[in-house]
């Protein structure tokens, strides 16, 4: 706990420093070192807890009605803390390089807020009582709002900020209600008390679980509560987007798991609901991602997809407890947690490299890019590792977690009770994988490969260490986890068991991981490496015998191929989107010489805004009540009195 506290105070110090030394040239480097040190300190206790499986807590006395403020780290929060500090450090360092493109005055508030946001997130993850939790929760929301508004001079950013804060406040109100129901029976508002609080009435349980789904769902951003996510991620600076996708929305997942841990095994219907939400969110998310041209919006929709995958794991876990298969529960929750961690890693890579592209080309529209692989090779390397990971192909971390989810669902199919229906989710997940592959082939190919489509792509230069280093480091971690899951799986299983309420000791966890086949995945990676190496040697031999020649791309009858002849992102995605028809949320324009498609968010543009318009109209209908005539107002007073008297007489008669 001391270490965590030290880390947080270092982060605060970093914020102070960057404000204090805002006009000093060494300010940024000091900031970076402080943040990295702080995150490093914070990581230590989290890792300890995770691998030992024993929680630690600290109590701050306070005179709130909420009673004491309790903070602590247990396996569940440890997983998210690791993601937080890992991504946070990388993104902060990157952020310095990223904001260097802006004016100083814009940069330092962003850095300070970033550090403070990390602190708020850490507090949310450690809070063990209602009051500190909600407090940190809203601090996090406000901080992220301000981070979105970093470029508040763009109307786009302001709109995104408003949508975000409204959505998140609605979520907060749902949490209001949820905690109010939780705290119904217990006067002490610490989580431990609440945990015992709601074992009794099923009505309250239903309310709590549904409200949790809304309140935390808005933050997690699964369909249909995702509508704030794409605009916010597009508008925020890229390292902030990385933090959002990597950690902020995961806090929603954390909340859901926390509630499960509090109220005990949820009923079956909830598990099915979560599984269904996860599946639909995964499919729709990746589908809508395919339709995007703005690379950051595209990545944001992929976050929706991956939240869906996480939810599928969570749902399977909930079903496991509901139908009495503890192994499944541990697997499901463990898979969800592992995918949370993995997604934090590779989505950050993707956002960071996308940010580098944006900074060096000045556009996020993929149709204007192309051929960047030659100009920013390191960014391209990081990006391709990230995409391979998010698609879930071995030997990368994304594969490990998706493989775990698959295994959970397959095993669900073995059971004899209704649980076996869950196996129907398997093909859905596979479809998601296929679509994700299509989507990232599109991004990678259109942005980095081929020939530049506009001059913007031509002017790009090398991003430099600050923009390339962090993503590459994260990429290395991705490969590491993908090749040695044995080291990462056991703690996740421990955390999963913690959520499921099943005791699981580290040695058992290791044994379980081995039984799941974690070792063989490493072998697979090795085999793959061997095969590739061998084939490469052969290929070298063959090439050495025969001559190599450079030439133009073969392009039918055309003599000199031009960039305009290349396939556009729109046309690349078109066939897939056509298959899904209106569901794909895309408006297409077919011209004689041009094919162009523009995406629309089915929920935001199709549901949320119209409903709000209805509310506004009804409100405007009430305006005549306030028409300025004093006699009218007096009439209100009198009629109120009359109504009161009527009530009085009724009650007197009733007596």
């Amino acid at each position: 706990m001391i270490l965590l506290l030290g880390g947080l105070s270092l982060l605060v110090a970093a914020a102070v420093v960057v404000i204090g030394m805002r006009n000093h040239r060494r300010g940024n480097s000091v900031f970076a070192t402080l943040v990295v040190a702080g995150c490093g300190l914070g990581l230590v206790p989290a890792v300890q807890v995770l691998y030992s499986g024993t929680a630690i807590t600290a109590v701050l006395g306070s005179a709130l009605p909420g009673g004491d403020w309790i903070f602590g780290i247990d396996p569940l929060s440890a997983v998210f803390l690791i993601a937080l500090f890992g991504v946070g450090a990388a993104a902060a360092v990157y952020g310095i390089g990223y904001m260097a493109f802006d004016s100083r005055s814009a940069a330092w508030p962003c850095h300070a807020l970033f550090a403070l946001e990390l602190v708020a997130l850490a507090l949310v993850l450690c809070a063990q009582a209602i009051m500190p939790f909600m407090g940190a929760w809203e601090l996090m929301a406000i901080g992220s709002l301000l981070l979105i508004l970093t470029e508040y001079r763009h109307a786009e950013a302001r709109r995104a900020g408003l949508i975000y804060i409204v959505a998140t406040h609605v979520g907060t109100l749902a949490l209001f209600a949820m905690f109010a129901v939780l705290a119904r029976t217990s006067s002490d508002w610490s989580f431990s008390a609440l945990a015992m609080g709601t074992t009794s009435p099923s009505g309250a349980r239903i309310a709590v679980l549904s409200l949790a789904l809304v309140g935390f769902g808005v933050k997690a951003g699964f369909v249909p509560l995702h509508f704030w996510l794409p605009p916010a991620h597009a508008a925020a600076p890229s390292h902030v987007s990385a933090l959002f996708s990597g950690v902020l929305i995961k806090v929603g997942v954390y909340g859901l798991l926390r509630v499960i841990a509090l109220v005990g095994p949820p009923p079956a219907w909830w598990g099915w609901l979560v599984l269904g939400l996860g599946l639909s969110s995964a499919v729709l998310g990746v589908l809508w991602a395919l339709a995007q041209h703005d690379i950051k919006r595209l990545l944001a929709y992929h976050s929706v997809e991956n939240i869906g995958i996480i939810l599928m794991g969570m749902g399977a876990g909930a079903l496991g407890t509901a139908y009495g298969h503890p192994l499944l529960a541990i697997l499901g929750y463990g898979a969800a947690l592992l995918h949370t961690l993995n997604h934090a890693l590779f989505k950050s890579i993707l956002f960071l490299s996308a940010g580098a592209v944006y900074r060096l080309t000045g556009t996020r529209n993929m149709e204007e890019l192309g051929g960047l692989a030659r100009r920013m090779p390191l960014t391209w390397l990081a990006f391709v590792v990230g995409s391979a990971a998010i698609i879930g192909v071995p030997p990368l971390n994304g594969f490990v977690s998706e493989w775990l989810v698959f295994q959970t669902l397959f095993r669900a199919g073995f059971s004899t009770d209704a649980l076996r229906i869950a196996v129907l989710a398997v093909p859905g997940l596979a479809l998601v994988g296929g679509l994700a592959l299509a989507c990232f082939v599109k991004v990678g190919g259109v942005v980095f490969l081929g020939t530049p489509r506009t001059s913007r792509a031509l002017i790009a230069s090398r991003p430099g260490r600050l923009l390339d280093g962090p993503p590459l480091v994260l990429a290395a971690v991705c490969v590491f986890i993908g090749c040695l899951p044995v080291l990462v799986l056991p703690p996740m299983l421990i955390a999963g068991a913690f959520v499921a309420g099943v005791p699981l000791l580290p040695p058992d966890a290791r044994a379980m991981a081995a039984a799941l086949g974690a070792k063989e995945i490493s072998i697979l990676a090795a085999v793959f490496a061997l095969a590739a190496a061998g084939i490469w040697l052969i290929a070298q031999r063959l090439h050495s015998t025969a001559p190599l020649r450079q030439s133009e791309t073969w392009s039918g009858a055309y003599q000199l191929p031009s960039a305009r002849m290349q396939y556009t992102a729109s046309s690349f995605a078109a066939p897939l989107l056509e298959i899904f028809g209106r569901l794909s949320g895309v408006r297409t324009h077919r011209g004689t010489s041009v094919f162009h498609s523009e995406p629309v968010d089915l929920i935001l543009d199709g549901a949320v805004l119209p409903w709000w318009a209805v509310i506004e109209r009804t409100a405007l209908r009430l305006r005549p009540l306030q028409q300025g005539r004093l006699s009218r107002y007096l009439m209100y007073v009198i009629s109120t009195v009359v109504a009161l008297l009527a009530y009085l007489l009724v009650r007197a008669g009733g007596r």
Partner: protein
Amino acid sequence: MPSSEFMVRLATLVIVMMLAPLIPGIASRTRSILTARRGAPVWQLYSDLWKLLRRGTVYSRTTTVVFRLVPIALLACVVVAASMLPLDGRSAMLRFPGDVVAFAYVLALGRFVLVLGALDTGSSFEGMGASREVTFAALVEFGFFIALASLSVATHELSLSGMLGSPALAHTWSSSAPAVIMIVGGLFVLLLAECSRSPVDDPTTHLELTMIHEVIVLDHSGPDLAMILYANALKLSVIGALLARIAMPTMDLSYAMRLGVLVTGLFAVGIGIGVVESTMARLRLPKVPLYIAGGSALSAFALILLLQ
């Protein structure tokens, strides 16, 4: 003694790899016989590969290192996938719970690299081919996993070796044969799509706009092209072997018999492909998803059957 077991499996893999180029040959031979033409000899692909291997290579100036890695990665992926398949009918060299997923995703990795390579050239033809490839592949993946799910439900196994090499499959044959038959049928349909044979793709066409697979590799040449073509042939026979093993579970036979079954199965697949190609014309592209959906539907029925 495991080590000799391992050697046997390796040998089987090598045999399959030797036989791989034969299957497309058989397919085209069947077609030419059925359509009463003088087609190419069965060994056609061998000679083609041999020629290509001694040719020089041409690289487009737009391409990057990705383009050069394509053949290596692709071939490696297929080989690794093959190593997870119980070719000898008992167990694979590499088996673990959920290796079915690994099997599919390794192939997916190969596709990823291949298609990136296509986009690397910046040619609109190859972009088109890539787009179609990934589109259909996504749908095929969907169907393929339905089949895998139904197999695992039937056998309560999580690994290919367990599914195909365990007595459970034989029991499933005896208990609910129609389900397994539907799985086999569905997988065959998907195989045609995955390995870009007719009616999804027409390997014999020369009009780029109608191609899917051929157009992706337009710019590859020499040994690279050879490796890619070989990798595709190998992929065909790997999936074919999967089919064969499901169709004819051979737990308790001698190794020779099992190998024989495998080879006949592969030939049967080749012949089947040839028959289809000679009877069915290429579908219009918008129709292809329906075709794949049909294949998936077959496996889906099987899954429903097995679940109740």
